[in-house]
C-alpha cells in the first residue's frame, strides 16, 4: 500500500485559492491511512472554513473513487461531475493525482497528500514501514527476505557499514534496526551465511531510473515464451 501524509491545510488552500468550485476526491484503493469519502468531506469543510475566513465562498462536492490509479474506474466515477467544477483536490497518493491529471485534461487536479513510501502496516505496533523501494532487481532471495534497499539507510548491497551499534542504524538516532545485522541474523539462523559472505556487484540503476514504463503484457511472467512464439 502507498503510505501518505496529509499536507498542511494552508498549503492545500494555497493551491486551490484561485478556484471557487472544487471537487474533493477520496480514494478507496491502497492509500493508507484511509482517505475515503469521510476524509474528503472533512477536508472540503476545512477548506470552506478557510475560504470563509478570507471572505470568499467555496462551493464543493466530496466523492470517493474505488481506485484513482485505474484510468477506467477513475474516469467513470468522475466524469459525471467534472463539468460543474473548476478544480479537483485528490486525497489519493501521487499515482492517483497523476492519473486524474491525465484522464481529466480540462481542469487541474491538486494533491492533498504527500506520498511517503510503498509500505506495510504493522497493526500490533502501530506503524507503517517501508519494505520495498521497487528497485526492479529483487535481492530478497539472497538477503533472507529483508530488503537492503528499503531497510538500509545507505542502500548497501554488501553491508553492514561500520555505523551500526548493537544492531541499530546510525541514521535516525540508533532506533531502527540495521537491515544488514538483521540479514546476517536471519541467514545465520537458516545456515545460509554463504549468501551473506558472497560479494554482490554494483547494482543496475538503469532499470531504476525514471520514467519507468512497462507494457502490460510485458509484465506477465511468460514473456520469454510469448517472445519465442512471436519469433516462430
Amino acid at each position: 500500500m502507498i503510505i501518505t501524509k496529509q499536507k498542511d491545510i494552508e498549503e492545500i488552500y494555497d493551491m486551490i485559492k484561485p478556484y471557487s468550485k472544487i471537487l474533493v476526491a477520496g480514494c478507496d484503493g491502497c492509500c493508507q491511512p484511509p482517505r475515503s469519502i469521510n476524509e474528503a468531506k472533512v477536508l472540503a469543510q476545512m477548506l470552506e472554513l478557510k475560504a470563509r475566513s478570507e471572505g470568499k465562498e467555496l462551493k464543493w462536492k466530496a466523492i470517493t473513487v474505488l481506485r484513482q490509479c485505474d484510468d477506467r474506474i477513475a474516469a467513470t466515477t468522475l466524469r459525471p461531475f467534472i463539468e460543474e467544477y473548476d478544480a479537483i483536490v485528490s486525497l489519493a497518493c501521487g499515482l492517483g493525482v497523476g492519473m486524474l491529471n491525465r484522464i481529466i485534461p480540462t481542469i487541474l487536479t491538486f494533491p492533498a497528500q504527500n506520498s511517503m513510501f510503498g509500505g506495510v502496516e504493522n497493526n500490533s505496533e502501530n506503524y507503517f514501514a517501508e519494505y520495498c523501494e521497487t528497485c526492479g532487481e529483487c535481492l530478497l532471495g539472497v538477503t533472507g527476505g529483508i530488503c537492503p534497499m528499503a531497510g538500509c539507510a545507505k542502500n548497501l548491497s554488501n553491508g553492514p557499514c561500520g555505523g551500526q551499534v548493537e544492531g541499530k542504524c546510525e541514521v535516525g538516532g540508533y532506533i531502527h534496526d540495521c537491515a544488514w545485522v538483521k540479514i546476517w541474523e536471519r541467514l545465520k539462523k537458516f545456515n545460509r551465511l554463504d549468501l551473506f559472505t558472497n560479494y554482490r556487484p554494483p547494482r543496475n540503476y538503469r532499470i531504476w531510473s525514471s520514467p519507468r514504463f512497462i507494457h502490460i503484457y510485458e509484465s506477465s511472467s511468460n514473456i520469454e515464451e510469448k517472445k519465442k512464439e512471436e519469433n516462430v
Partner: protein
Amino acid sequence: MPKRPAYSNLVKVIRDGKFVITGELEPEKDYDIGHVLHSAEEMKKTGKIIAANVTDGPQGDAYTCSMVPCYLVQEKVGLEAIWQMTVRDRNRIALFGDILGGAILGLKNLLALTGDHTALGDHQRARPVYDLDSTQLIDLVSKMVDDGTDLEGNEIRGGRPQLNVGCAANPNSNPREPEILKVGRKVEVGADFIQTQTSFDVDDAKEFLKELERFNTPVLLGLFPIKNYGIAWYFNENIPGVSVPKEFLTALKKAEKDNKGNKQAKYDAIDKVNLEFYVPFIKEIKKTTKAAGIHCMAVHYERLFQPLLKDL
C-alpha cells in the same frame, strides 16, 4: 586473489615486515589548509609516521575535499597520503574520474569508505548517493589498477593507475561477526590493507586482530590519543558504541583541574596520561599480535607524536 604489487611506500614498508605508524589529517570547512600541512610536517619530523590519512567529509559535513590536501601533503611536505574516499557523495562515474585524477597527481593509497550518512552532517537535506558501496568501490579500484578498465570494462588509455587500496574495520561493532565477514568480502575483491576504527581496550583489540588474521592482510589498529578532557567527554557521550575508559577520562579531568592556570604544566600532565595509557598499549599490540602497525588518530595533537613513538 594474487597480491597486487606494492605501489605505495606504505604497502612496501608493511610488506618488508616493519611495524608502521600512520597519522590522520582532517581538512574541515577550510579555504586555508595550513593547519593540515603543519600537522603533516610534524608527522614527517617524527621519522616514524610514514603516511597520513586525509579524511573525506567526516560526520557527513561539507568539508574541503580530500584529494587536493592529499596532493599538497605529498608535494609540499613529502609525506605519503592515504586518500580517504567515501561513496556517500559520488556515483561510480565521479568516483572513477576522481580516482584517475588522483592517480595522475601521484596519490598511491586509497582508503575505501562508506562514509557517515548525510543525515548526520551539516547538510541533512542533501541527497545521499551510495551508488556503489565501499566493497564495490574496492572492486572498482581493482578493475582500474589490475585490469586497466572502468566498471563496464572500457579500457583506460595510457596505462593503468597505480594505487593500493585499503578498507576499514570497526573493532567496536556489536555484533562483530557480520563486520568480520564483511571485511573478508572486501579482501576478496582486492583490499591490500585494513585500518581499524579506534580501540580503547587492549584485550578486545587483540581479539579483533586475531579474528582478522584469517584474511592474511595487514591490519593497522586505530588508536585515538586525546588532547583534552572536553574531547574525551564529547567522544564518550556522542559516539555510540565506543566508550573512553573511565580511568582515562578521570585522569584527563584531574590533569586539567590540578594544573589550572599553568598551560605548560597542564599539557605535560595530559600528555603523561596519554603516554601512560598508550605506550604500553602499543607495545603490547606490537609484541603479541600480528598487527602491521598503528593508525594514530591524534588529530591536532602533534606534540604527542615524538614521546609516543620514540621507542617504536
